[in-house]
């Protein structure tokens, strides 16, 4: 097993996309059309160039710097990476500041818990 892990030549990538929450449905549908059938989503708070806002409670003003964002994690095969990135950009873009980022990194292996399938068969 240990061996199996090292001999696989990193066939998959992890795409992490931080987008505006109300774009989630659009992005999901666009990825589905592309043939990507799985993803994991997390509510996060983002800090960046996009300005926050001020809230006032009984005269005390609070600057809220963190804005609600949605983070998608999608594990894809190498070939799917660029099409997926393009799709996400198209679906998530409003052209306004704060549209978000996409980060790409390596994944060494994947396992489907139900079947113990490995690697790209697992995703």
């Amino acid at each position, binding site marked *: 097993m240990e061996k199996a892990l090292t001999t696989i030549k990193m066939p998959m990538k992890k795409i992490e996309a931080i987008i505006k929450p109300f774009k989630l449905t659009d992005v999901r549908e666009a990825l589905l059309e592309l043939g990507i059938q799985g993803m994991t989503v997390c509510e996060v708070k983002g800090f960046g160039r996009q300005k926050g806002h001020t809230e*006032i409670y009984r005269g005390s003003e609070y600057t809220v710097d963190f804005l609600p964002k949605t983070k998608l994690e999608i594990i894809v095969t190498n070939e799917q990476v660029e099409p997926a990135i393009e799709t996400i950009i198209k679906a998530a873009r409003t052209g306004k500041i704060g549209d978000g980022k996409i980060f790409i990194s390596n994944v060494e292996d994947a396992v489907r818990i139900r079947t113990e399938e490995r690697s790209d068969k697992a995703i």
Partner: protein
Amino acid sequence: MKSARVKTLLAGVFLQAVTQGVLFAQTTPAMSQLQAAPPNAPAAATALTVVPADNAWILISSALVLMMTAPGLILFYGGLVRGKNVLGTMMHSLILMAMVSVLWMVFGYSMSFGDGNAFIGNPMQYWMLNGVGGVPNGDYAPTIPHQSFMLFQMMFAIITPALISGAIAERMKFKAFLLFTFLWMVVVYFPICHMVWGKGGLMNYALGGKIPVLDFAGGTVVHISSGISALVCAFVLGKRMGYPREPMPPHNVVYSLIGTGLLWVGWFGFNAGSALNAGKLATSTFAATHFSAVGAALSWTFIEWLSKGKPSVLGAASGMVAGLATITPASGFVTVPMAFCIGLTGGVVCYYAVTKVKARFAYDDSLDVFGVHCVGSVVGMLLLGLAANAGVNEAIASVSIDGHKLSCVGSIAQFVAQFKGVLITLAWSALASMVILKIVQASVGLRVEEDEESLGLDLSQHGESAYND
């Protein structure tokens, strides 16, 4: 700079308060004499005495009806919207508790219950509630202080425009909402209230009206007027961004269920308080109210179970509210089994109004004000025409309209009278709402900007968010 101006303003208000205070203090003996024999009271009015039991009942009923607005309705509505709009939605009702009360004090009560013509009361008669004191008004409620009657009626005036706010939820400018409801009270509520319940009102069978319309606790005045106006609002404002493609499920159904419970309990004050005394009519109204809610809860639940495969909890709650709205006009005139049947019918009809009719005509009456309140009360008004029962309320056995004696007991003739009452209310409210909306649109604008809508009303209109960690 701004705050300087405010300070001047406030200083003025304060000064006025103090002077008025002295003024009132000095004139009081005179005023209280005045109350003892108000110009508009019949000679015999001096004999009217307050019955403490009736007064206790009306005061507690008034409190219950205010409770219907807050926390009842604010929870019912607040739970149904998305979390980013919950405060804005609740604010709609909360601010009306203040704004409508002021209108009511200044001229609203007088426009509604003052003497006048068939359509409107004299706004000066009870200007600033002058003359509305401890002595009963024999025309309206001979055993409680006139002031108690005024308070009880005020609570109705508050909740009516608050109901409309469900149709415009999640997208209307706060300023526009204020202007709209201000105009709506003056042009729709006060006149219709006068027509139906005011002395000499067109449809007030008991006090000199021309059309013998029965409306015990506000089917026309409260639910139809607000419900049809809500529909007009939904059409004029247009749909929420993303509706219906994007799912907009209630952000907290628990809130709506708490609201339902409080509405049901408060409705006992609303309907049974409308008996204006604590006698057996209050009891039978209480009973009719309860059993209609029961009937509609069951019919809505089971029809949904049959057609969608599951009985939803929000469905049961919606049925309850529908049953309460349906029985409102009829509550003081029908037997318990009849109230139950009216409720059953109301539940079914409202269910279809909310699911099929709304889908068919594709309007975004966000919280179903039209489908529940207007449709429900129309059902109640019409069935009442057939079911009004002198055994429950002997006052309807023989009424005099235009010098003729006639009976308002259930019959085809009474059905027709009810139908007229419904039509007048629908037509007047819809037309006036349309005009008012155009005025508001032209002046301050109706909808928030797209950015503001997607950010939510809480942040964009009020600078707050409901939930923080």
